[in-house]
């Protein structure tokens, strides 16, 4: 075992003691340096010394993405600029960006988290790691990069884009691990196929480390099936640390959270009450060690669950459910709550459908239109109009049985939907608000 994985197995009593000790340092630090936090604590009548047990964390106020926007750029920064060594920013879809300044210590913890994920996936110093996440303000590229370097891997920092060249380098350098978004990997696979390259035969690729966008088990199966690699899930978010907050082991159906650094809670998003382990709700994180921009009870908007029971791998770090749904992603169509991930899961059950689709919502004079465009695979295209019509029908039935709505299903040619090199946009909502 790589020594970097040692903390994964910290005995639970020791872990809880460590978390409490870290929180008892973090809360006063945050109270002293961040005005918004202090003001909210005072409004609630809660003082840092009220944190006596881990459960007392529930007395403290939440932070939200809107706080990061409102306090942009440096309002939530606790450390002096003297100690800040890097900024990451994310623009999001609406207006103002958020900015997360980090100290060297913050970056070290993040790299450790990413390295522990890679080690858990079975990646070692002997691996050649291609980082095809975007580099820059986005945390994906640099997060995976420093994590892989920390583990001692040979890193190929291609970034996103220039796909044909990426495939050439992958072959020439004997790349064994690729880190990118699942949608970019699918794009890469399409381009490779066009170039006549078979991942199994022509590359040494064994592992894919995928994150930055929610993806379903069905897409994971597709990826493994077309490429022969093992697809691993890495979780992170800019507000907390980028990729490397949690990852899956070979046993669990979920992701071990590195809760010695990132303390998780699950809350009811309506009542804001903390829910016991085993119940589903909104995932909330507190950064236990971060000094640049600490986050106390940050509401991720991700829907998950902290699983109960022990994982056969022996890691003591709690397992969260894979993120299938981000509460921000929920669509209300004809009064029904629909998650794009539900639709994705339906589509992937139809083998003739390529893993590329687009949900298109618009308004006519009288009503909302709900259309799903799906690519047929080149292999599935037949000269027979009835077969294609039957395929369209099966796609419709699959969606209808799960979401209870009958969207218009449009079959489109393979490769005709837009591809993305970063996070993919699968929903176009042009409805009148």
């Amino acid at each position, binding site marked *: 075992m790589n020594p970097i994985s040692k903390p994964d197995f910290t005995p639970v009593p020791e872990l809880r003691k460590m978390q409490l000790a870290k929180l008892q340092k973090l809360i006063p630090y945050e109270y002293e340096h961040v005005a918004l936090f202090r003001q909210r604590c005072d409004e609630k009548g809660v003082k840092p010394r009220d944190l006596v047990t881990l459960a007392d964390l529930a007395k403290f106020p939440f932070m939200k993405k809107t706080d990061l926007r409102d306090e942009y750029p440096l309002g939530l920064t606790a450390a002096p600029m003297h100690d800040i060594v890097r900024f990451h920013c994310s623009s999001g879809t609406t207006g103002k960006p958020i900015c997360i300044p980090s100290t060297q210590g913050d970056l070290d913890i993040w790299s450790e988290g990413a390295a522990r994920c890679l080690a858990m996936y079975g990646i070692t110093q002997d691996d050649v790691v291609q980082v095809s996440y975007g580099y820059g303000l986005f945390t994906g590229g640099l997060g995976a990069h420093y994590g892989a370097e920390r583990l001692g891997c040979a890193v190929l920092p291609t970034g996103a884009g220039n796909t044909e060249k990426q495939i050439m380098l992958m072959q020439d350098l004997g790349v064994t691990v690729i880190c990118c978004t699942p949608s970019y990997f699918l794009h890469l696979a399409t381009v490779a196929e066009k170039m006549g390259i078979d991942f199994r035969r022509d590359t040494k690729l064994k592992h894919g480390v995928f994150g930055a966008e929610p993806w379903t088990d069905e897409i994971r199966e597709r990826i493994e099936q077309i490429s022969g690699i093992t697809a691993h899930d890495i979780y992170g978010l800019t507000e907390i640390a980028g990729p490397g907050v949690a990852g899956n082991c070979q046993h669990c159906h979920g992701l071990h959270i590195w809760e010695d650094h990132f303390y998780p809670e699950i809350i009811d998003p309506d009542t804001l009450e903390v829910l016991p382990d085993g119940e589903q709700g909104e995932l909330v994180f507190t950064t236990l060690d971060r000094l640049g921009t600490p986050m106390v009870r940050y509401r991720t908007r991700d829907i998950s669950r902290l699983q109960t029971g022990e994982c056969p791998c022996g890691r003591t770090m709690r397992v969260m459910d894979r993120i299938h749904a981000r509460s921000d992603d929920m669509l209300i169509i004809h009064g029904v709550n629909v998650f794009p991930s539900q639709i994705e899961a339906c589509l992937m059950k139809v083998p003739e459908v390529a893993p590329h689709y687009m949900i298109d919502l618009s308004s006519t004079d009288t009503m909302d239109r709900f259309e799903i465009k799906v690519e047929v695979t*080149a292999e599935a295209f037949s*000269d027979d109009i009835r077969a*294609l019509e039957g395929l*369209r029908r099966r796609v419709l039935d699959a969606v209808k049985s799960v979401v209870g709505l009958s969207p218009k299903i449009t079959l489109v040619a393979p490769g005709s939907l837009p591809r993305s090199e970063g996070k993919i946009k699968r929903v176009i909502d042009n409805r009148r608000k």
Partner: protein
Amino acid sequence: MTIKQLSVFLENKPGQLAGIMKTLAEADVNIVTLSLANAPEFGIVRMIADDHVKGADALAKAGYAVRETEVVAVTVPDRPGGMADLTAKLDRAGVDIEYSYAYSLGHGEKAILVFRFDDNAKAEAALAAEQT
């Protein structure tokens, strides 16, 4: 005679057919004949080209879903009842016509039609047998 046909998936949006034709023109492929089949939400364009291998290659490279399929070219006797005789033969042999379109219409001579049968080989055998 069995000949190769190119079938291309057609999305239900303007400019699709023009794009296919442009791709083939740029590849210097000549279209001998074509036929459009439409379902409510998509279509298939079927073509006989002078060089179907080059045509299929150019279309696939341009990102179209293309398939090479086999069809049967049949000469229809240019006289009253010519078509009736032909269909009667096929009927006796128990083959179904999935679709058909004109391959070339000679001026006052013979018409050649392209057929896709549920069983091309059986249809060809039936037509050949009764000719002799």
